[in-house]
């Protein structure tokens, strides 16, 4: 789990730099600060469980096992990317790893996961579908439709709302009267819990419970993971218009990686984490090399694959 979290952190740092240096293009939404949610949720899943994600999905893809080189190559718009350059940062898919796609249409991930769970239910498979969503998704009607469908059909879905405090510039308190998103669950007759999204163990535990329940036919659950978005909404976001630098600094003191270190201080021998870090960094460097060396897609492939 530390490896996952560290990889995500370094990945975001590295991609951000590549963007600033003009090597990458297109929108970029960093998941920095939210690593414990990605890692905690996905480490509680099986390989054949599936995850649907959002515009802020790098962490989810990595945590679900997608290959870094192919993610990088997609961000670089190369033919070796997961989507052969057709997707980009907001549309990574790795079917091999059950990462069934991102929907940057707010609320869309809930639909995809509900549908996947419906497929599992029809095929009597013991698989679970997870929808990552932002707190912004809670404004959307489809969020509620998904909860309701999953509830009445007892579908194996875990809805994970990453409440990082903001939907772009909009604070969660401005978007709903009741600040606990988990409270929406009751109206649909499903469990709703709040977890500390900085604590990877707490997230994993909550996900395990929800996934086990889903697998046993107990139906969906809603997990609200409270966390904080360290970066601007996207690269180039004029953050200062809506939040103070001090607020961000304060929040960053609550670092999921440091929290892990502190929690495992007595358990993990010195040097082990450092080794993991080095290995992760090496993997990322390698992925970047792969992306850079990959050829761009053949333009004519743009015209293939659609009715």
């Amino acid at each position, binding site marked *: 789990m530390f490896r996952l979290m560290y990889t995500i952190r370094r990945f975001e740092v590295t991609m951000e730099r590549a963007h600033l240096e003009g090597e990458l293009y297109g929108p970029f939404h960093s998941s920095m600060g939210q690593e414990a949610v990605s890692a905690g949720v996905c480490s509680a899943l099986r390989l054949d469980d599936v995850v649907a994600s959002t515009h802020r999905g790098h962490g989810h893809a990595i945590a679900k096992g997608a290959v870094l080189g192919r993610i990088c190559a997609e961000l670089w718009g190369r033919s070796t990317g997961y989507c052969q350059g057709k997707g980009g940062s907001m549309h990574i898919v790795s079917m091999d790893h059950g990462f069934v796609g991102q929907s940057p249409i707010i609320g869309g991930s809930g639909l995809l996961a509900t549908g996947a769970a419906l497929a599992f239910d029809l095929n009597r498979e013991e698989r679970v579908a997870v929808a990552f969503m932002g707190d912004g998704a809670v404004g959307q009607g489809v969020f509620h439709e998904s909860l309701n469908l999953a509830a009445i059909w007892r579908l194996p879905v875990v809805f994970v709302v990453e409440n990082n405090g903001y939907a772009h510039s909009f604070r969660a308190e401005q978007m709903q009267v009741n600040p606990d998103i988990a409270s929406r669950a009751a109206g649909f007759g499903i469990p709703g819990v709040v977890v500390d999204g900085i604590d990877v163990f707490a997230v994993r535990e909550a996900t395990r419970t929800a996934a086990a329940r889903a697998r046993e036919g107990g139906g969906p659950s809603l997990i609200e993971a409270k966390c904080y978005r360290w970066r601007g909404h996207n690269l180039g976001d004029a953050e200062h218009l809506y939040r103070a630098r001090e607020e961000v600094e304060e929040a960053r003191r609550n670092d999921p990686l440091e929290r892990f270190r502190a929690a495992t201080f007595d358990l993990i021998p010195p040097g082990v984490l450092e080794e993991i870090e080095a290995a992760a960094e090496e993997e990322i460097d390698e992925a970047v090399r792969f992306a850079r060396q990959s050829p761009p897609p053949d333009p004519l492939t743009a015209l293939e694959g*659609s009715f």
Partner: protein
Amino acid sequence: MREAQADALSADDRVFIMGQELGEYGGVFRATEGLAERFGAHRVRDMPIAEQSMLGAGVGAAIMGMRPIVEVMFMDFIACGMDAIVNHAAKVGYMSGDQMRAPMVIRTQGGSGTHHGSQHSQTLESWFLHVPGLAVVVPFTPSDVKGLFKTSIRVDHPVLFVEHRALYRTRGAVSDPVEPIPLGKGVIRRRGDDVTVVGIGKSVGQAQIAARLLEEEGVSVEVIDLRTLVPLDVDLVLESLAHTHHLVVAHEAVERGGWAGELVSRVVAEGFDELDAPPLRAGSRPVPVPFAKELEAEMIADERLIAQRVRQALGMVEYAP
């Protein structure tokens, strides 16, 4: 339609149906009658009223290998589920670099004639020509319904399958077993020499009536049923024009922005020299569909309008939009 769906359910375990009033009720137009009993309520699923998530869940199931049939009761309600169709169903396959596909049939029906008013009478298939990633099928005869449905449920892409309310009671011979009909192949429903009238669904029937009216006036009309709008069988139309040199394209949808514009543009670009006169369109007037029958008759394109456009295309009377 019922048989087509039953066949699909029997033939392929991956097929299931979602929609409102499907189970005990058998569908408001009876197209799923008895299917829930026969195949179980899990494969013929009654839905709460929630078009966006019904269609969106269809996409989610499709990418996991299922073949959902999703029924939108009135085509007007497609507006409630537009995001799932346009941004998800039509795009997930392409965007993923073909790692996934979203094969699903979105069944719906629309059109006027039952006086349901503006929000329950629209003909909206033209929107979907403009949405790359979807096939658009609009069958006319009962045997085409079956043959085209058989293909639609097997195609690896999402298909919008549009029926017309007025045609649910049409009877006609259906071969057994029915052959799948390829998408993108129109048929000539009636041979003629002077003008080609092209339509889909209900408009084909109206074109045939118009053809009979015009016969009395000495005009010989060829009627083409395109059967699908995506893919669009432009070649068949061009072949016919090589013979008739005059074209009228008919649809009940509002003329402005309707698919006839696409066909006319294609024909003009690819067969300008075959045309002895400007191709004309016979579509409905640009207002919502009103309730009262006198009003509806004024704005909806029907056999009288088609006949009039033919006369105009042939220069028998002057053209007026």
